[in-house]
């Protein structure tokens, strides 16, 4: 380690950052001197970490997340914390308590979410790579909307220690970058076992993206090209898959019938877990202080009412309801069955094909404030949540434009085959460059 630092004072016209570190120290190593942005739900020792929520305003973690430790060890310069939907709850980054992030391709549009700040920071040329987190598409959606590469690794491949939990059983920290090579390099640094995360596995990642995909079998699920998917987006993605065929891959049509219940299973699971995870924010130990003149539950209620945003309160209430006595079996337990069905469908398909490909998002980036009702917003996650429910790796790579906006090609793979998913994306990237 040497005492280097880089200067980081961007204009940030897209409001990608919540916090920047004008003098960012860094060391030597694989990422020596490279500016890396970190999503604001990942704990950074000494740097304010808010999850874009008022309830964590002023919270400076006394410890680094495992991935942040690894970043520092690799020599990376952590230059700032990026904007997001509050606690990761959203698909547009409009749910940030500190104002939305804008899409660098069209500032009238959202960058996607919830890792919108990380995607915009890369697409806007402020950093080369960034960490995002993906609970139901939160890396892949903004990657697709902003025309960059983002990977949600296999569940357990990257330690979640220090990631402020929204939905523990679904989410993963993952790399985002301008190119597949950058994403691969960042994954190499953050992947591997961490004894502080009991759900992490000893599966380190050694990158050697190979563009040779001859003989690869690609499953094309009909649900990814059906109702609700913008035909223009579907057309761009179909063309991209054609390029993969030109590289020697073959395609096989398939279906994922369990997708009918995937979105419901996802929203029940994530809201249940969130209602429990977010209960600790009570104004006692961090964040805006509770009024100690009042009885404790009154003080809790006031702090939570005043400091959580609308969408967060909605999800806490949904999850609380779904876990309530008498409803657990109706909602949470059923959601887990639906989840098993999704896993089973993927297992079946992956016995016949190597990867699955389709669009990342059903549309291009929405206009700001376009998705005003929560249901239509939830529906836009339909193509990304299956990978979270099944815990499989899924990546979004830019594959062209529709209506002047970037479109993402989503590639999903077998558990622990993040390498293969990256290879396919790399092959595509090489083929079109």
């Amino acid at each position, binding site marked *: 380690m040497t005492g280097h630092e880089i200067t980081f004072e961007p204009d940030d016209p897209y409001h990608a950052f919540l916090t920047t570190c004008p003098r960012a120290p860094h060391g030597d190593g694989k990422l020596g001197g490279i500016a890396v942005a970190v999503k604001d739900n990942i704990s950074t020792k000494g740097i304010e970490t808010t999850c874009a929520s008022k309830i964590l305003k002023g919270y400076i*973690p006394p410890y680094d997340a495992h991935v942040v430790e690894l970043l520092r060890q690799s020599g990376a310069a952590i230059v700032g914390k990026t904007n997001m939907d509050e606690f990761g709850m959203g698909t547009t980054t409009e749910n940030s308590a500190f104002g939305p992030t804008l899409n660098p391709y069209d500032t009238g549009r959202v960058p996607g979410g919830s890792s919108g700040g990380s995607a915009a920071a890369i697409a806007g040329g402020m950093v080369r790579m960034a960490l995002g987190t993906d609970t139901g598409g939160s890396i892949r959606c903004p990657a697709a909307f902003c025309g960059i590469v983002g990977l949600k690794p296999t569940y357990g491949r990257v330690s*979640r220690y220090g*990631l402020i*939990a929204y939905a*523990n059983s679904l989410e993963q920290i993952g790399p985002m970058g301008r190119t597949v090579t950058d994403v691969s390099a960042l994954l190499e640094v953050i992947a591997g076992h961490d004894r502080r995360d009991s759900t992490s596995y000893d599966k380190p990642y050694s990158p050697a993206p190979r563009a040779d995909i001859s003989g690869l079998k690609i499953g094309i699920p009909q649900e990814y090209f059906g109702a609700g998917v913008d035909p223009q987006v579907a057309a761009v993605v179909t063309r991209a898959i054609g390029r993969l065929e030109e590289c020697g891959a073959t395609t096989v049509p398939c279906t994922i019938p369990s997708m009918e219940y995937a979105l419901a299973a996802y929203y029940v699971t994530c809201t249940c877990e969130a209602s*429990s995870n977010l209960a600790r924010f009570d104004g006692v*130990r961090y964040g805006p202080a509770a009024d100690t003149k009042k009885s404790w539950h009154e003080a809790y209620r006031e702090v939570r009412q005043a400091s959580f945003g609308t969408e967060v309160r909605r999800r806490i209430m949904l999850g609380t309801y779904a876990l309530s006595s008498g409803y657990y079996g109706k909602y*949470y337990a059923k959601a887990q069955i639906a989840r098993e069905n999704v896993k089973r469908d993927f297992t079946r398909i992956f016995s016949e094909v190597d990867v699955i490909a389709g669009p990342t998002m059903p549309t291009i980036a929405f206009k700001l404030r376009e998705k005003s009702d929560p249901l239509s917003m939830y529906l836009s996650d339909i193509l990304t949540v299956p990978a979270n429910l099944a815990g499989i790796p899924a990546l979004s790579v830019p594959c062209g434009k529709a209506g002047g906006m970037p479109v993402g090609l989503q590639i999903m793979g077998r558990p622990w085959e993040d390498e293969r998913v990256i290879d396919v994306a790399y092959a595509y990237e090489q083929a079109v460059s």
Partner: protein
Amino acid sequence: MAEEQVIVGLEVHCQLDTKSKLFCGCSTDYRSDGPNTHVCPVCLGLPGAMPVLNKRSIEYAMRVAKALNCTVLHESEFSRKNYFYPDLDKAYQITQYDKPLAEGGYLEIEGDEGGEKRIRITRIHVEEDPGRLVHMGNAERGKYSLVDYNRAGIPLIEIVSEPDMRSPKEARKFLNKLRATLEYLSVFDSEKEGSLRVDANISIKGSERVEVKNISSYKGVEKALLFEITRQKSLLRRGQKVDRETRHYIEARGVTQSSRSKEQEHDYRYFPEPDLRPLHVQSWVEGIVLPELPDARRERFIARYGCSLNHARTLTGELRLANFFERVVAADPKGLATLADTWIADTLIGELNYRDMSIHDLAMDEKNTTGFIQLLGLVKDRKCYDKMGIDILRQMLDTVKQGRPYETPLEIMKRLGLVPLDVASGGTSPGGASLSETNPVTRAIAEVITEQPAAVEDFYKGKKGAFNFLIGQLMKKTRGCADPGELNRLLTEELQTKEV
């Protein structure tokens, strides 16, 4: 009318005596340190921190499960119990819910009707202790609470019994036996403050059940149950009914009080803890070998040291007591076994209880054990008689209790001026004076006979009690320093001589 049947079931929470907490590496040895000094991101519930299961605590819990004859489940699971309370930093407790570590066992106790009685164990599960609230100020002004998270994350096991106990006494026996078993397993230290907490379910047959929470001492359990039985019975006798409710035990006043809070309506919204994987312990549990448990040790004490059943039960009913007994006996296996049996099981226990002390208070300093062994040696060698020995023991215990510097039994004897009086040899004193003038025993006999003419008369009239009274007076005068057998003989002789 038949006595109303009392039905008692217990839920016992015990802190497992591990070195580190259940889900982090923080030390569990927090009691002598300042508040919030044994904490880290995990046990403070800081955002992003994750639990990592302490394997040792599961091992400990499995030992308990095996010792209580439970079936350890092939797969158990941790769940979150969600509720808001300021001592609960994550606003949920990580515990076990529908897949506990172990189920269906039993513990044998000495039943009220004599003989061994089986109390069935419903389940055993592992969970984390919450932090602790320290209430400051008073009701009039400055009323507030401070939170200490040192205790947060200490491993607990909850042992749930079936409602198989029929009296507060049986409940106490169950608890004592359970405590002994846990200590024999080296998983629990009853001496640590707050290491055991009990919730009791109690009902009179045919009526509603009441749950009494917050009992934090062994004695408290019996007291709380006695209070509750009286309360419930008197309600029923007045023709009122017992409400199904949760009550709190107020230790200071020895009463139970209805919890008016909405606690009963708590909906804990349990769901599996997503940050921990399910536990598979089958092959692990098979490898666990249990040490000697209280029942086995009791039988061994009877067979090896000739202890009576009751004494053996008492001696083995507490690990430290049993160890103390064996330490003492080991000093002189032939000479001390019989003596140690009565001296420890009757005399020492009585004196300790009288002073509200435990064997730990005495035995934690090795010097005291040595002193006790020396004391028994003196008694064995007739260098000190029982009554003297008891006086010395009392001094020893008072010294410990008051924190005074240690004295050996001989030093105590000397300080108190206790010298065994030689009455049998009848030799002359060094001064050459005649025996009757110098021998305090002879003098004491003469004095007693002079001072108690009425008793002497009663004796001659054939009243048996009179002789015992005179002996008592004699013991007092000689401060227990004379051989009781010799006293007996000499007094009889003297009285008979006088009569002639």
